[in-house]
């Protein structure tokens, strides 16, 4: 029998059901794997006792033949999801020690499906970052190494989730994606990540960054595991008025392997200046794979692509400046004393937020302030309509869009740190998808010259995650990505 921690969720599900091993044995195998990999700094909090308690319940249910879809599957939960009684920090000093008295809907859905929790995963502070270097709890290391042996970033903001899945210290993890925070780290670590359509998963109990863009999604070893997880995570929630009251399809069943006659769009504007030749080559390889499977490539145009990043860096900070106003030292989290109430607020927020979060709150405050609102915020909202319309036109010609996930492979910890805009460019291919509210998936497709994973992105029509799973499954089979970090 293969090592338990090297099995996919689909394999674990069958093994647990058949009684080949117990949920307790599985939890113990993962707890040991986590202890051996603490150098990655993937976890903010480990919860081995909770995992074992939940596993004991799972074993009882399995013995009675009452196993649920994720019975006994050990997951890591991004530290942006509020978890009852377990510290939830969003990677920030300002929430250090905060133990929510409630559970986020998405994590509750996973527990209701039988999943167990190994701990809370490290992330960029308030999900603001593309390298997992802004966490108050230190950077996460990518388990993959470049030929020079330098420590690499796992991407961000769901960097702890990505590193943990890639290192096989969790069976899978939750992530959230506001501008690429699931897909870019998935690409950097050779795993599958999907950001569902805005409205597919409830945002209730997820620490808010930019509410019109945030979505939760699974990060997993393969496309099937992501399909199994999303089915459990998604669904309407009366507590989030933007979650959509639509049935959740069986995503696993959508993986038919058949893409004959499907039209996939290749947006010419994604051939950006300075794109590395190996990314270009991988993209062409993806086109060839889908053609060989019977799908038809169509050139499409998304003319406002170059304006997506500047639009995002107005809208996201504006929403963040409003959302993060709640961290004032009064009701929970850090409090730094001051002589007056205002001084207490100012001291608490100066000390509690890191540099990138402060910068974004100040930008957001500026673009929303009197005299600048129309010139910046309203302008960005109008450009967002243009970006949305670009995709709406594209759907007249194709069923799905194929692009690279990120413009590079993982880079070194410490690189790009002094260049915020250079860092923002990581999300050039992912941000338009959030602005348009569409589903996007990253599938590991190949290795760079340095031996690092590279992903391809699929973008779908609103609420058509099924096509992403179908096409993602075909890409995955063709790519046959079996490389492992450190191998």
């Amino acid at each position: 029998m293969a090592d338990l921690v090297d099995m996919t969720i689909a394999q674990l599900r069958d093994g647990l059901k058949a009684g080949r091993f117990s949920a307790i044995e599985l939890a113990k195998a993962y707890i040991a794997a986590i202890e051996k990999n603490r150098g990655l700094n993937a976890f903010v909090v480990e919860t081995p006792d909770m995992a074992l308690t939940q596993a004991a319940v799972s074993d009882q249910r399995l013995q009675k033949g009452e196993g649920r879809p994720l019975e006994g599957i050990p997951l890591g939960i991004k530290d942006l999801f509020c978890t009852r009684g377990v510290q939830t920090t969003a990677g920030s000093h300002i929430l250090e020690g905060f133990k929510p008295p409630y559970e986020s809907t998405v994590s509750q859905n996973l527990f209701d499906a039988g999943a167990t929790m190994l701990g809370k995963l490290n992330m960029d502070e308030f999900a603001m970052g593309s390298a997992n270097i802004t966490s108050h709890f230190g950077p996460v290391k990518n388990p993959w190494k470049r030929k020079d042996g330098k420590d690499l970033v796992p991407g961000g903001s769901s960097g702890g989730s990505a590193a943990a899945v890639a290192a096989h210290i969790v069976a899978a993890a939750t992530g959230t994606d506001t501008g690429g925070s699931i897909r870019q780290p998935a690409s950097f670590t050779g795993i599958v990540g999907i950001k569902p359509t805005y409205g597919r998963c409830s945002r209730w109990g997820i620490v808010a960054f930019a509410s019109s863009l945030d979505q939760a999604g699974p990060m997993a070893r393969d496309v099937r595991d992501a399909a199994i997880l999303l089915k459990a995570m998604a669904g309407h929630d009366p507590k989030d008025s933007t979650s959509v009251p639509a049935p959740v399809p069986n995503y696993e069943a959508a993986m038919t392997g058949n893409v004959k006659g499907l039209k996939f769009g290749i947006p010419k504007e994604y051939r950006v200046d300075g794109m590395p030749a190996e990314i270009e080559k991988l993209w062409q390889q993806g086109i060839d794979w889908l053609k060989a499977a019977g799908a038809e490539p169509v050139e499409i145009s998304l003319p406002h692509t170059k304006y997506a990043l500047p639009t995002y860096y107005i809208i996201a900070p504006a929403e963040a400046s409003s959302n993060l106003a709640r961290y004032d030292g009064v009701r929970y989290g850090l409090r730094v004393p001051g002589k007056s109430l205002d001084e207490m607020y100012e001291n608490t927020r100066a000390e509690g937020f890191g540099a990138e979060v402060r910068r974004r709150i100040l930008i957001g405050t500026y673009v929303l302030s009197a005299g600048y609102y129309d010139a910046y915020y309203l302008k960005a909202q109008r450009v967002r309509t243009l970006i949305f319309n670009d995709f709406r036109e594209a759907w007249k010609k194709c069923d799905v869009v194929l692009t690279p996930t990120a413009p590079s492979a993982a880079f070194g910890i410490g690189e790009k740190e002094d260049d915020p805009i250079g860092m923002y460019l990581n999300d050039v291919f992912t941000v338009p998808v959030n602005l348009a509210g569409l589903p996007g998936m990253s599938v590991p497709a190949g290795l760079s010259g340095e031996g690092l994973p590279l992903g391809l992105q699929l973008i779908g029509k609103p609420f058509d995650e099924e096509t992403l799973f179908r096409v993602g499954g075909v890409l995955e089979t063709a790519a046959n990505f079996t490389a492992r970090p450190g191998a």
Partner: protein
Amino acid sequence: MSLDQATVARIAQLARIRVAPEDRPKMAKELQTILDWVEQLKELDTSKVEPMTSTVEVVMPQRADEVTDGGYPNKILANATDPVRVSSTEELGGFFTVPKVVE
């Protein structure tokens, strides 16, 4: 247009984030870099474009006007600094505390 230090001080005050006077020049420069970069949106004529408020066409749901949750002040205060808790023996308490606001 360039951000002056008075503007940085004003934004910081609006955002309730202390930025020490000696840090203002650096912050002004960082914010200006980002603002210069987003200037490129001005190339687009958006005079006939509606601003986007939601990517999903949904009618905001309504629910019955009923109390569905609450009634647990100690749970609400569980993460607060120096709260005044509800005592089991007297009906006083159940407050967040802040520095004195009224002289």
